[in-house]
């Protein structure tokens, strides 16, 4: 049950919006309250350290305008309820992503409640930051 198809069905059941699915990843454009939308990128990859799969949820939050954003994000990582911020330098200007990773050892199964809660929280949190930094619904 730790497959992308399973994740796809799970998200389709619990969220409204467009979902594009690939072999090991999917892109869900989730509709939030107030008509806003937030894109969550879901990726499954094997761990390079142990016998486990990692489900990575990633959602873009904001554009980095100055160095204060970077320091604030690093400090915020200490108090984040779950997940953390990461700098994406591949874009120009760089952006900050909110990421949540769930480690699933091979002998264990994914908890559907855990994944839906994580996606909800991530999309809501990323959109909140986007709203606070820029009124547009860009991501």
């Amino acid at each position: 049950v730790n497959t992308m198809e399973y994740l796809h069905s799970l998200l389709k059941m619990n969220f409204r919006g467009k979902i594009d699915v690939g072999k090991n990843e999917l892109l869900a454009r989730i509709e939030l309250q107030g008509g806003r939308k937030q894109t969550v990128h879901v990726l499954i990859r094997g761990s390079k350290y142990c016998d486990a799969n990692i489900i990575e949820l990633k959602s873009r939050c904001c554009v980095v305008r100055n160095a204060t954003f970077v320091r604030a994000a690093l400090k915020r990582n200490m108090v984040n309820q779950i997940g953390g911020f990461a700098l994406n330098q591949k874009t120009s200007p760089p952006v900050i992503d909110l990421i949540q990773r769930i480690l699933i050892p091979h002998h264990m199964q994914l908890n559907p409640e855990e994944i839906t809660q994580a996606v909800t929280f991530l999309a809501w949190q990323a959109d909140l930051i986007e709203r606070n930094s820029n009124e547009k619904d860009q991501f």
Partner: protein
Amino acid sequence: LTKNRMRIHSLQPGFSIEELLDGEAGVSDQKLLNDLLTVVKVWAKKDSQNLPDFFDSEVEIVSARRQVCSSIVLNIQREERALFPTLVPFKTRKFDRKQWETSDCFELAPRDLPCLFPDVAIKKIYPVVGNEELVLCQTCGGSAQLVCSICDGSGKQTHDTCNGGGTLRCSRCFGAGRHLTGGVNLVTCTACNGSGSVACDPCGSSGSVVCANCDEGAIDCSDCQGVGKMLKRWNIRSEISTVKLHKLYCRSNWLNPNAAMGCDGITLQEYRYALPVPTFEIESLKNKLPPQLFPLARDLLEHSLRPRTDFQIDSGLKLEVQAFNVYRLELQQNGQPAVLLVGGLSNEIVPVQLPPRSKGLVSQVLRGMDSALNLVGLGTRSRAEREFLKLVEAGEIYITDTDLLGPALRNLGVQVEVSSVGYQITLEGKTLPISLGFVQESKEQILLRTTITLGQGDRENFPRALAINQYLETGFIGLVESEDRSRETFVLIDNRYYKNLEPERFLAVLQQLYREANAIIKEKRLL
């Protein structure tokens, strides 16, 4: 509270000097209230004989208020000296009879007096030059010799071989005087002429030999070593100890100024002085200490510092400003009110009001029945709670860890030590310590915060650190400031909900986090 009397960070966080004058405030943080209730239950369990029946299992917190208390803690390094003589055998033939010009023990044996403020008294002995004199040895009365105790002064000892008789049993006939010859004939022994004994040659048949211990019945006196005179020298015995005094300031008057928890706080300021300093004036502290503490400090200093004498000196002074939280808990047990104060780093409990203690046989029977029912899981307290409180009391579990995660990890082979915020964890065969902290996130949720220190948080590496977060498998790099805000450190952090955490899965996370941290440090990704 615990074996090690360790600070519990949630109850006693850091304080700033500005906070010391804050008034009392209500406590609504659920984790804090739970921690306080655990403190009360552990205390009540230990002191159950003096409390109403079932107090430890039935007590509930109705409301709690908090007050920051501050105190001035005075440490005086005091050295006391005493002169005492020692007698040594006068073998050198020289001695220093020059009279001392002073009786001041500190001038007779001058020593540097570093401000050590030892917890345990430091005892030393210093030799003093001069004032030496010769005295007759008290043991031998000046004769330099003593009567030999082995031969009692005779110079002779009983010969052991013949036992003082001067003869030995004949070895040929074994003392019979006759022996067999040719196997059949009994003949008179020719060796002893039929007497059965022969003369003892070593002692010349006298039965005694010269005493090997002495010289003609006398030995050298062991005290003066055969000199007869002793040299009286002088020494100084020194004992450096710390006298600790304190006065406490509690704005709400919950505690009196001399309450014991006054010296059990977090040190916010510290001033050290080497004494006696001619320029040291108590008034000079006025601008340094918080205003509410200066009068207390002055009072303590005026009554505690002793004037220097020939035998005593106050050589150092350490003034500490300490602070700690005191919680006033309004409790109830079966509708009966109780009030307790909990405070200090050791979470000392001061009862203010307790419900009346039930007496008599019925109460004892009830308690006995409850204990028996508890053992089979049917009493007023669940088995898990009993186990939890027992572990808290033994200092083996963190006060918030009601789900027994620490012990569960220990059972999985992890080294788990209780710390002020949660646990310090060392994975088998690994060196980097992992810190586990319990954080109240919301009214219902407690977060488990796992951190591994990665290194100094240099500003130029901030973007690199945040970018690494894209490629990690577990955890994120975060930035943490020291309490005094002087430095920043990169840490690998993982936050997750504490409730319903599976220990085995969490151990996998810890191992993964360790590998990530180890790789970041080894590959110098943050340099």
